[in-house]
C-alpha cells in the first residue's frame, strides 16, 4: 500500500489521474527561483518554450540569454556567468546538453567547480515520434560519473518544481533530468523532497517471504507503483523507493531496502549500463550484496513510435516490471 507518510496524490490509482509533463514543473520552479533570487539567470539553446524556460524569459528578459543552437557555448558561457556570482540554468534537450557538450561540462563546470544547473529535457525513449536521435538514454551515466556533479531525476512535475528550487540553492553543479510527455502526478506539495534522500512511496503490509524492493526514478515511477500494487494482489510484498537523486546516492535507504527485501529491481528509462541500476549495484555489491534485476534499455538505440509503444518495445512497461519481480523471486 501507499506510504501515507509521504502524502502522495490521493487520486494516484484513478484512471483519470491528472497528467502533467515533468518539464512543466521545471518551468514553474525556475520562475519561482528567479523571483526568490536575482542571481538566477537563464540560458537556452533555441528550445525556450519546449524546455519551459519561456516563463522565466518573459518575466526576466534581462536575465535570459538566447544562445541559438550552440550547446557547447551554452554551458561554457554559463560557467563564465557563474564565475561572476550568477546561478545559471541552461536548458536544451538532454540529447544535446549534456549529450553534445560533455567535455565542456566536465572541464568548465565540474573541474572548474562552478554552480551551473544543467537542464536536460525530453530525456528517455518516451520522446516517441522524434526517433532515436532525440532519445537521450545515456545522460544519467555521463553526468553521474563527473566529480562535483549532483544528478536529479524527479518523478513528476511537482517534484521537478521542488528539485529546481533546491538546485538553485546549492553551490554544486546540478544535472536535472526532465521528460517531454505528460505523466501522472504522483506527489503533492506536502510530499517531502530533499536532495540526496530517497523516499519510500509504497510498502506492502503482506507477511510473506516473497519480498522484493523496487527502486525507480523519473517518468516510469507511476508504472512501477502500479506494478507494486498489482503484485501485492498476487501475494508478493513490494517496497518501492523513489530515487529522485541519482547522485549523491542515498546509500543508507538503498541498503535498508536491500536488508528489508533481500531482492532489488531497478526501473529507469535509461540504458541499464551506467544508469540507476549500475549506481545501485555499485553500492550493494560492496556493502550488502543483493540479487538484482534491471528494467531499462539493454544496450540499444531508440526509434520512432508512440511513447507508450516505445516504452513497451524496450521492456519498460508495467508487465515488464512485474515480470522482473517474478523472475528475481525464482532466483
Amino acid at each position, binding site marked *: 500500500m501507499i506510504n501515507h507518510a509521504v502524502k502522495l496524490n490521493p487520486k494516484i490509482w484513478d484512471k483519470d489521474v491528472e497528467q502533467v509533463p515533468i518539464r512543466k514543473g521545471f518551468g514553474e520552479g525556475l520562475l519561482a527561483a528567479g523571483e526568490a533570487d536575482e542571481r538566477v*539567470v537563464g540560458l537556452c539553446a533555441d528550445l525556450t518554450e519546449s524546455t519551459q524556460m519561456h516563463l522565466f524569459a518573459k518575466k526576466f528578459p*534581462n*536575465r535570459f*540569454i538566447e*544562445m*541559438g543552437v*550552440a550547446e*557547447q*557555448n551554452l554551458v*561554457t*558561457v*554559463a*560557467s*563564465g*556567468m*557563474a*564565475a*561572476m*556570482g*550568477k546561478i*545559471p540554468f541552461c536548458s536544451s534537450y538532454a540529447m544535446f546538453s549534456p549529450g553534445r557538450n560533455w*567535455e*565542456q561540462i566536465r*572541464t*568548465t563546470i565540474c*573541474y*572548474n*567547480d562552478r554552480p551551473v544547473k544543467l537542464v536536460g529535457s525530453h530525456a528517455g525513449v518516451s520522446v516517441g515520434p522524434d526517433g532515436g536521435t532525440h532519445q537521450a538514454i545515456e545522460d544519467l551515466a555521463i553526468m553521474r560519473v563527473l566529480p562535483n556533479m549532483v544528478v536529479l531525476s524527479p518523478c513528476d512535475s511537482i517534484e521537478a518544481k521542488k528539485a529546481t528550487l533546491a538546485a538553485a540553492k546549492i553551490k554544486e553543479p546540478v544535472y536535472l533530468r526532465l521528460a517531454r510527455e505528460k505523466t501522472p502526478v504522483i506527489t503533492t506539495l506536502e510530499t517531502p523532497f530533499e536532495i540526496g534522500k530517497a523516499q519510500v512511496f509504497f510498502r506492502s503490509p503482506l507477511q510473506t517471504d516473497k519480498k522484493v524492493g523496487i527502486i525507480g526514478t523519473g517518468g516510469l515511477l507511476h508504472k512501477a507503483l502500479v506494478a507494486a500494487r498489482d503484485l501485492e494482489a498476487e501475494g508478493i510484498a513490494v517496497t518501492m523507493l523513489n530515487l529522485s537523486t541519482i547522485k549523491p546516492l542515498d546509500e543508507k535507504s538503498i541498503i535498508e531496502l536491500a536488508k528489508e527485501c533481500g531482492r532489488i529491481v531497478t526501473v529507469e528509462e535509461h540504458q541499464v549500463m551506467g544508469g540507476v541500476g549500475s549506481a545501485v549495484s555499485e553500492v550493494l555489491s560492496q556493502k550488502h550484496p543483493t540479487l538484482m534485476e534491471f528494467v531499462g534499455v539493454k544496450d540499444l538505440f531508440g526509434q520512432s513510435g508512440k511513447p507508450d509503444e516505445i516504452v513497451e518495445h524496450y521492456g519498460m512497461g508495467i508487465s515488464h516490471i512485474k515480470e522482473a519481480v517474478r523472475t528475481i523471486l525464482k532466483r
Partner: protein
Amino acid sequence: MPTSSKTTETSVHLADTHLTDKEIQSLAQKANEIRISIIEALVEAGSGHTAGPLGMADVFTYLYFHELRHDPKNPDWPERDRLVLSNGHICPVLYASMAHAGYFGTDGVEKFTKSLRKYGSIFQGHPHREYMPALETSSGPLGSGLSQALGMALAERIDAGRSYKKWFWCMLGDGELNEGNNWEAAMLAGKEKIGNLIAIVDRNNIQIDGFTEDIMPLEPLSDKWQAFNWHVIEVNGHDFADIHRAVGEAKVEFDKPTIIIANTIPSKGVPDFERKYEWHGKPPNKEEGAMALKVLMELGQKLKRA
C-alpha cells in the same frame, strides 16, 4: 566585403598615453625575466610547452605589469579585470607572470621554477583552480575560454549595464581556433555587442602537427572575425608600443568585442628554438636549457645598459 588589410588606418592614436621609453625598457626587462623563469621551470619539470609561453611573454608582461586592473595580494578583489587563459597549455607564461607580479608570495618565482607540473604543486600541468584559486578558470581542452570570458562579461552587464569598468580578457591560441566552440562564442559576442571583451590571439602560425596554414588554414583570419561583427586589430606581439596602441583602440570601441591578432614568433627570445613547430609541446633538455638561459641572460645585460 571586408578585406584582410590591417586596421591600422582606423587606429585611434592616444598621443598622451604613449608608453615612455623608460616604461618600454622596464617591460622588456620584465619579459626577459619571465622568459628566464619559463626556461628554468620547463627544464626542471622535464615536460611542458616551450614555443607558446616564450612567444607570448611580451603580451603577458604588458598585461600583468601595465594594463590589468588587479591586485596580486588580493586576487579575489571583486573589481578586478578578468583574464581567462583559453589555451591552457601555455600556462608557464601565465604562472611566471603571476609569480613575478607577486601572486604567490616573495618566493613565488622560485616556487614556480622548482615545482611546475610536480605532485602536489599549485602549478599544475594545465591550469586548475582547485590548486590555484587565483586563476579565473581551469583550462586545457581547447576552445572554451572565449565563451567563459563572454559569460563573465554578460553577467557583468546584467549588474552594471553598459557603463562598465571591468574588462574581460581572453587569451587564445591560433591553432585553437580550429575548435568550433570559439565560433559559437564569437557569434554570440557579436550579437550581444559586448564592448568590454578583448580577446588576444597568439598568431604564431604553429600547432602540434605543423604550421597552421598546412594543418587547417585560418586565413583570412581578420575577415573571419570581422564577419562575426568583431572589431579586429593586428599587432606585432613583441612591440610594446604596438600592443599598447591596440589595447587603447580596443577600449574606445563601444558596441563590438575586440580581437587583437598578435603576430608573434614562436619561442621568441631563443633564436635556436624560434619558428620551429617542434617546440610547441616539448621542454628544453638540460643542455638546451643552459644555452637558452645564457642567451636570455646576455640579452638581460644588454637591456639593463640600454
